[in-house]
């Protein structure tokens, strides 16, 4: 494979941060860790920034508070409690969550600390009702070995998940409480990953260790993978919200591409001799030029009493429209920044277009007295808003002169990334004094270490050996997280090959036809139960699951009965065989045993899925012999 970039030469550095929910009670109260849309009560709070030792308060945070930002919380009686609405001191921590996180630590070759100290990490965006997240380091000094070299895991933390955001309004944010307090294990690596594929290998290894415990949550939103990516001369970019493992290499490659192109733009601006002082927040009112514009967006803004403001970006012509990631330009990055205030911006490199004519463009060029290398950006909105939006554009333009700005970015489904917010500052932390420190005696640690769960790879090998099933089948079982169910079914007496093929081949085969993800483990258990009791034939599984996917509210038994998939008694089978024989009595009399194939076919057409083929065969053979 030829690679797009020489990552070694570019000095690529990647670090991972992986968060995964544990399937235990909440971390500081024995409340079930489940999500539910039911809202039983609502309350509102405000969060006030705390004063530091020197008597200082973060002025930006205080300003926000004074503006009266409110946080509205929606709660469910069963899935939250006084601890999580910050009306009762914390309990716990949940012993199971602690134990699972220690297992994970050992699986990642890390060393648990001697004493766990929970901290309060200040978070005042309202996502934690208390204004802080409780978090503790439970292990340090782990590592993952990869073909490219070893990657360190400096810390493994156990912490609380935050509220789910429901809606963000101008002066208030609405949160749902159910997710708050679900235990999260946070695993971060050193930035020693130097190749996009290596990042995937590391993430897979960590993911395997997490899943090995069988105590992590599964499904959308239960795992969050963040990437920290930088190249030499670029900047550290934190990429949030990477859902799929397979996307990791592409996202890294795209980020490298973005940084490489931004550095090229910087160099070109340098060659053009652009002086940072010339990039100024000097906005020109060009509303006059657009009085009779055909651009709907601008016309609407003017009609509403807004203005069209323009800013001059000296030396930027051609560079704002330069592609830095497939489909994304420097102009896109400027627009992302301005998004806080306006829907979009217009820049010279994309004009004339969007109803803006060449004449209008030239008028702006003239008004701003632009040279041939100079660019402009336009915003049409209420004047104050337009000014704020353009200030963001100017800020981003100044950063382009420096190269790559440090940012937190959001992963997009196509592998690109989009601006989210500036990199967070250093966390403000102090001890959570309501929770006693937890000493981990060596005996306790030894016991956990001696009873570690098997890793997925080990499990695949065991399945092949123990159950003599195909390796690829075993791998799919484990990777699709069907392994626990598989073992349960085998323990109940199902033949391993049958259990595996139903769980993998049958279920996956239906994927294209029906929404198979609606079939629950409970459904599957029910179907196998029927099979074990001799109520259905193995041929019936497919039909049952197909039906359950369409009607997930039903049980396997209901579906089997409604669809006539339950096995018939021997007498009933014999009756149907007799019927077929009577209908074809002439052929049998003529051909004798030679009619066997045809009769068998007709009988099975009526009995498939409802009778064992062997039984039908025996009966048909017997009847024909009797007649001839």
């Amino acid at each position, binding site marked *: 494979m030829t690679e797009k970039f020489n990552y070694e030469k570019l000095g690529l550095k990647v670090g991972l941060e992986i968060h995964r929910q544990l399937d235990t009670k909440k971390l500081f109260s024995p409340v079930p860790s489940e999500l539910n849309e039911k809202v039983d009560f609502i309350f509102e709070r405000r969060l006030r920034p705390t004063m530091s030792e020197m008597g200082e308060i973060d002025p930006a945070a205080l300003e926000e508070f004074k503006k009266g930002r409110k946080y509205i919380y929606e709660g469910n009686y069963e899935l939250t409690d006084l601890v999580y609405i910050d009306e009762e001191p914390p309990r716990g921590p949940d012993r199971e969550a602690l134990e699972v996180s220690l297992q994970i630590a050992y699986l990642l070759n890390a060393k648990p600390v001697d004493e766990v100290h929970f901290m309060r990490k200040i978070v005042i965006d309202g996502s934690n009702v208390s204004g802080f997240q409780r978090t503790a*380091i439970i292990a340090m000094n782990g590592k993952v070995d990869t073909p490219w070299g070893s990657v360190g895991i400096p810390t493994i*933390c156990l912490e609380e998940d935050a509220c789910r955001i429901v809606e963000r309004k101008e002066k208030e944010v609405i949160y749902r409480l159910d997710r708050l307090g679900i235990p999260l294990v946070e695993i971060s690596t050193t930035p020693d990953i130097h190749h996009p594929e290596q990042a995937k290998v590391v993430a897979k290894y960590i993911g395997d260790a997490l899943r090995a415990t069988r105590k992590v949550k599964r499904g959308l939103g239960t795992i969050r993978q963040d990437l920290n990516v930088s190249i030499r001369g670029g900047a550290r970019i934190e990429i949030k919200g990477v859902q799929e493992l397979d996307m990791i290499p592409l996202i890294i490659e795209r980020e490298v591409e973005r940084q490489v192109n931004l550095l090229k733009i910087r160099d070109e601006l340098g060659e053009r001799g652009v002086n940072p002082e010339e990039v100024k927040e000097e906005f020109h009112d060009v509303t006059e030029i657009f009085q009779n514009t055909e651009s709907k967006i601008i016309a609407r803004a003017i009609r509403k009493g807004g203005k069209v403001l323009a800013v001059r970006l000296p030396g930027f012509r051609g560079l704002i429209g330069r592609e830095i990631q497939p489909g994304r330009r420097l102009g896109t990055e400027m627009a992302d920044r301005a998004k806080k205030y306006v829907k979009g911006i217009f820049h010279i490199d994309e004009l004339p277009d969007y109803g803006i004519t060449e004449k209008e463009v030239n008028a702006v060029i003239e008004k701003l007295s632009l040279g041939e290398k100079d660019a402009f950006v336009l915003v049409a909105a209420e004047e104050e808003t337009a000014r704020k939006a353009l200030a963001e554009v100017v800020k981003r333009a100044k950063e382009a002169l420096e190269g790559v700005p440090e940012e937190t970015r959001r992963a997009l489904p196509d592998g690109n990334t989009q601006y989210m917010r500036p990199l967070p500052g250093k966390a403000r932390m102090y001890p959570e004094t309501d929770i006693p420190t937890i000493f981990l005696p060596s005996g306790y640690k030894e016991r956990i270490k001696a009873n570690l769960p098997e890793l997925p790879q080990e499990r695949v090998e065991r399945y092949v050996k123990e159950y003599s099933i195909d390796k690829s089948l075993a791998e799919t079982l484990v990777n699709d997280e069907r392994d626990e169910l598989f073992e349960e079914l085998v323990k109940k007496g199902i033949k391993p090959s049958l259990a595996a093929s139903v769980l993998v081949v049958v279920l996956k085969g239906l994927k294209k036809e029906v929404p198979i993800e609606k079939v629950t483990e409970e459904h599957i258990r029910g179907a196998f139960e029927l099979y074990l009791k001799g109520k259905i034939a193995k041929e019936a599984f497919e039909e049952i699951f197909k039906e359950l996917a369409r009607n997930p509210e039903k049980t396997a038994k209901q579906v089997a009965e409604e669809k006539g998939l339950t096995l018939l008694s021997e007498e009933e089978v014999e009756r149907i065989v007799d019927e077929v024989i009577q209908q074809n009595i002439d052929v049998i009399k003529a051909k004798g045993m030679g009619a066997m194939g045809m009769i068998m076919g007709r009988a099975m057409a009526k009995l498939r899925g409802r009778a064992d083929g062997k039984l039908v065969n025996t009966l048909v053979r017997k009847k024909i012999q009797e007649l001839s």
Partner: protein
Amino acid sequence: MRKVEEFMRKHNLGVGDLVRILKWEGNELLAFEGLVMPPYELSPGETLTIKLDNGYNIGILIDAIEKVEVLEKAAKRPRMAFQEVLPRKEGLPNVTILGTGGTIASRVDYKTGAVHPAFTAEELAKAVPEIFEMANVTPKLIMNILSEDMKPAYWKRIAHEVAKALNSGEDGVVIAHGTDTMGYTASALSFMLGNLTKPVVLVGAQRSSDRPSSDSAMNLTCAVRMATSDVAEVMVVMHGETSDTYCLAHRGTKVRKMHTSRRDAFRSINDVPIAKIWKDRIELLRDDYRRRGEGEVGVDDRMEEKVAILKAYPGVSGEILDFLVDRGYKGVVIEGTGLGHVSQDFIPHVERAVQEGVAVCVTSQCLYGRVNLNVYSNGRKLLRAGAIPCEDMLPETAYVKLMWVLGHTDDPEEVSKMMLTNYAGEITPYTRFDTFLR
């Protein structure tokens, strides 16, 4: 001395020192770097706590430490000096805040994790600037005790400080108080400060002030607003509901902490609160409050401290009451069952107490409702034994009041008369329908 103190002394480690520690993990030596943290008060002391560069604390087993090296001694940090008093603004009312313990504002040292109380005017002005927009606030720390350690001698001190402030021209006084016994102090002040002409407001917090979600600042803001109001009474001002929407001002003799931890733990019992305090206004809920007026505030702090509260319950023995009588107690408040009952077996002990000159008052452990000893025979017997039925008074209020009454007279008839006289809103004339569980 615990291992950690010994270790710190032996290696000359001070809090805040940057150290490098080598520690055995099996047969591997691990290195840690961080700041030495103060040892936890209640831990067994087997570990040394350090704060890592990422802000997290961890405990390191002292027995496994191979080597400790001080990389940098903690720098002597300048002691922060804050102005005690700020210049007064013309046209604003003057409010004194008396501190009795606990913290209404704090400073968090994110370097060491220490939380320090902040009580100078300058610190308060930074932490809760809103109160300085409403009044010229003068903070004064008069004691520093936990609410559960409060006792009658402290009530007297607080009463005198309040009177001193009000008589020196302040327009109102706010008392920052721990929440556990705030209701008792409110009652005591209600009786001691008989001729109040200005507001006296007790305030506290259910969530510590170091956290962004603390109720402290909003409660304080509402308390200062109430202290500048027209209501010349002793009141408790705390959150009205779990939301940060409004506070309630409760009459000092009718308020009780009804929840161990919720913000809205304080409730008016058998009474309607005096006011709702919103962000920008006071909504009065009744009209029968004492108006602000002119005149010196006096302190009548004569108290008989030999008074006890005794709860009636199935199986309770009269010996307990006998013990109190034998020990020279002058008054006992019984928290009776239901309408104010005690068991039949208990009644002779009450009789004996009364005969020996001990005042026996009856309240109800139901808290809500009024006692009535005329309905059942045990009630009538108790009445005949000489017990004083305390109407709809809270047991805690009756306890404080009995101390105060016995400080003034030991004549049984006079005691009974005073106990049944309404001095500070402790007895309502009739039981309103809308006062239960709200």
